[in-house]
């Protein structure tokens, strides 16, 4: 079922378009940083030119990709369950593999797919920045900021590549989880209108909060562990509870 699911998604034009967008939005950042350097004697440090570091003015590419992340991930394939329901394929699959496997496969595949797409995008961006900005040292003055007392910042500045690697892994996991929330909404509502709205609404509540989930996406910022860990715990709680509830409801109580 997993294999046929992936093949179906890879043959879908909208899914491929969403994948290409996730892959290429970080390119805008590289172009912006290159134009910034035109009049300057400085070259960006590769770790600070990395997409997550958000060194451009306005952060437009980051906002475009991360604020609307659930939409991209739903288009990518997390909304697959809706198609199943509309075509009636859902009934065939459920009678073949059972409700439990049907639900768990939809949820885990969207996790893998979403985290994988984000991982591919960030890896490609890192490789390109490492080549394009090789030997650069400019950090927007972040390397000169003395923020003793902020362990995370001190560690990040001391080991910039380790910092961006950790944040990248975290971003992939969060992308996987919000992909799973998108799949849950699709399984639950079976209608694009409601599924997209619900997933985006849950995500945007966390983006708009004063301690925004976006802080988890950005290395070299002023927010240390004491701010980030509560944000992470709340996000994981929300993103794990929703799929769990949908799974239990779909498998145990809703015999449609």
């Amino acid at each position, binding site marked *: 079922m997993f294999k046929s699911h992936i093949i179906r998604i890879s043959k879908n034009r909208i899914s491929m378009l969403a994948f290409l967008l996730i892959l290429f939005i970080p390119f805008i950042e590289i172009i912006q940083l290159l134009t910034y350097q035109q009049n300057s004697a400085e070259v960006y440090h590769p770790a600070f030119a990395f997409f997550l570091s958000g060194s451009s*003015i306005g*952060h437009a590419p980051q906002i475009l990709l991360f604020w609307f992340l659930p939409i991209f991930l739903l288009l990518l394939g997390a909304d697959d369950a809706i198609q199943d329901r509309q075509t009636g394929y859902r009934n065939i699959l459920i009678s073949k593999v059972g409700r439990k496997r049907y639900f768990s496969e939809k949820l885990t595949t969207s996790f893998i797919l979403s985290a994988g797409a984000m991982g591919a995008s960030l890896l490609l961006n890192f490789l390109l920045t490492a080549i394009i900005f090789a030997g650069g040292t400019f950090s*927007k003055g972040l390397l000169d900021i003395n923020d003793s007392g902020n362990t995370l910042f001190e560690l990040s500045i001391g080991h910039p590549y380790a910092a961006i690697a950790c944040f990248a892994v975290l971003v992939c996991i969060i992308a996987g989880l919000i992909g799973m929330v998108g799949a849950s909404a699709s399984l639950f509502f079976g209608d694009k209108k409601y599924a997209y709205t619900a997933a985006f609404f849950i995500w945007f509540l966390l983006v708009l909060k004063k301690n925004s989930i*976006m*802080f988890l996406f950005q290395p070299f910022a002023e927010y240390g562990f004491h701010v980030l860990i509560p944000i992470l715990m709340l996000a994981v709680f929300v993103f794990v509870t929703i799929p769990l509830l949908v799974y239990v409801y779909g498998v145990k109580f809703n015999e449609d």
Partner: protein
Amino acid sequence: MSTFRKKMGKIGVTAVMGLGILATANFAHASNDNVPYSFTLKPNYANSYTTSRYRQTSNTSNKFKVNLAYSSEGSGTYATFWLDKSGTRVSDVHDVKQGSGNHYYTPFSTANQSYVRLGAENNNYSASSYSVSGYWDEEIN
């Protein structure tokens, strides 16, 4: 005759002193000033700017100054600053920590002998906006 000469001499000295004061006053904004600014850091594509000041030096080693004295985001938070000439960035961007005092940065040569302003934005890509205030100077010598 000598009194007349003395008188004229005195007038001359006064005139020179007066002109001198006028001249210094004229050049006052080329010294190390603390020009106050305050504005809102907008959350996304929009940037905030101060009013423009004339940068009369032709030397990029005459740096510009930024001091982030207050940020409603909280104590010790960062904001990003740069020098702007009517919509074109004329310096590198720099993150400044609230309460960390004066910072001096080198502008591009395109900033020389023209009206420049301080541009600012939040360093985070969260959806919140904050108000900040502090001091800046377009040239320090």
